[in-house]
């Protein structure tokens, strides 16, 4: 945890005293030792260094099938998907009941939660202001991919 301490310009603050550099120091020859001298202990962590954490490996399971989409609108705020967020969409995941999916409706991409139970297929918003989209028999729901994550950046 980082604690931010307010800076007080009034507090007594002085730069550490430094010696002046010598303009012309006397030449001083020292022998170069032919042996390597280990300095200090080797790091005890050396054998335990792991690779760094990569957000890509956290968010993306299948690189060849993963695509990004940007969200516009507020119908999914209940699922923590907000206007401006980036969706991570994986086409290799089979869409199932309960998944958040990217569907194609009227030639537009739409993000909704898939409800597929007992032959009933609906797309649910996660915001009470938006009614669910229902599909009748013979109507086709085209799921483009399954949303497997979101990425958001905040203005700071």
């Amino acid at each position, binding site marked *: 945890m980082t604690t931010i301490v307010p800076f007080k310009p009034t507090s007594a603050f002085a730069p550490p005293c430094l010696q002046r550099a010598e303009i012309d120091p006397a030449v001083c020859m020292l022998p170069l030792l032919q042996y390597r001298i280990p300095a200090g202990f080797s790091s005890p962590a050396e054998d335990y260094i792991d690779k760094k954490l990569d957000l890509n490996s956290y968010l993306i399971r299948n690189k060849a099938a993963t695509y990004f989409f940007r969200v516009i609108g507020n119908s999914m705020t209940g699922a923590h998907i907000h206007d401006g967020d980036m*969706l991570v969409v994986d086409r290799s995941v089979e869409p199932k009941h309960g998944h958040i999916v990217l569907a194609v409706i009227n*030639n537009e991409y739409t993000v909704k939660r898939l409800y597929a139970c007992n032959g009933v297929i609906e797309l649910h918003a996660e915001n009470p202001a938006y009614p669910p989209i229902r599909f009748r028999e013979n109507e086709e729901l085209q799921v483009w991919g399954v949303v497997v994550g979101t990425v958001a950046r905040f203005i700071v």
Partner: protein
Amino acid sequence: MGSGSGNSSTFYRVIMSTDITLVSRQLFALVDVNNFYVSCERAFNPHLINRLVVVLSNNDGCAVARSNEVKALGVKMGTPWFQLKDLVRQHGIIALSSNYTLYGDMSDRVMTILRDFSPCVEVYSIDECFLGLQQLGKLWPTATDMGQAIRSRIHQWTSLPVCVGFGATKTLAKLANHIAKKRPEFNGVCDLAAMPSSQMDALLSVIEVGEVWGVGRRISQQLHAVGIHTVKALRDTSTAWLRARFGVVMERLVYELQGISCLALEEVSAPRKQIISSRSFGQLIYSLPELSESVASYMSSAAEKLRSQNSICHAIQVFIQTNPFREQDKQYSNCITVPLPNASSDTRLLVRAALFGLKRIYRKGYAYKKAGVILTGIDSATLYQGSLLTQYGVDEKSARLMSVLDQLNQKYARNTVSVFYVGSQKTWSMRRKIMSPCYTTKWSDVPIAHAF
């Protein structure tokens, strides 16, 4: 190219074995994306699905990809855009500039998926890939099952439609792919290796000989002239006679059609013996500084390609030309070869040589349409013959500098570091007026998902 040795060994195995089934026959697949550029555009723009779509070449010159609906109208590959304008109005064809960034990324995805099916892969072009299968086909009940699995996985993961052709040779796999594409009854997968010979003969006897991989328009005419019209006729012609008349390449091609594999899978492409970088300008160019900019930029990318195959070149050529289709203009075109005192791959040296050559051939008062550079006398950098009279651009220091330059341009973006100032006003750059967004490679261009 290594195909010679593969040729003889396969050949002998087939000849000496009395029982063909004992021979471990080779099996190749060719996977090809249907209407690749159009399919990539459709993948991210549902409005284009079921519409008539063409993708135009550089500078929006002519149609290089057509959706099936446009093909059905009889629009040929390479039709100039201005000739299409009437059809566009009549049928509402949507035209797009080519978006190579998008196509390149989608191509990478397809090739990645294919590597899951076989480790032996030859990426033949941006939308075509050969797979060497040997025994791998046995993991599936039939090759056709494997083909359908490839088709459905690529479609599921990328939304791109592909066709798959199987054959005992690369030439047959390519032909099988052609059949899979043209004949809907095959459902996108055709396996010539497992097909009964009567059915195969019937198929090959209705395919025009020019469809065979490696038979160009001229050779096709010559074959027609001697009475060989179909693929079957070519396959059944005596190889000795064909060799005497058309040469060894044709003989090899016919062996391939007979199922004797002569062309090996080229998993690593051989280093190129010539590198060309040239383009038509988006608009006509008159001045030397603007031409210099374009030539320097083409040379930079050519030099990068040269280094990426670990080669050096002994000479460069520069050419410039006016637009021969503008008959109202004075015409001029010229080319100059500039030999290098020491072979090099240093962008600084090559750009200097190119600009030196350009200055020699540039004439004032012409409207230039195209410029380009050609690297020739290409050798491996490791076989370099040292010289007493070296200048910069040939030593260890130059190699290190160039490797840093390449790394920077690869890590950040093209032209992050360039040896020649590329002005912000690239009047010579490609004209791509109606280009789609780079949906998969640029944060500002990713498609929108509505949450309404």
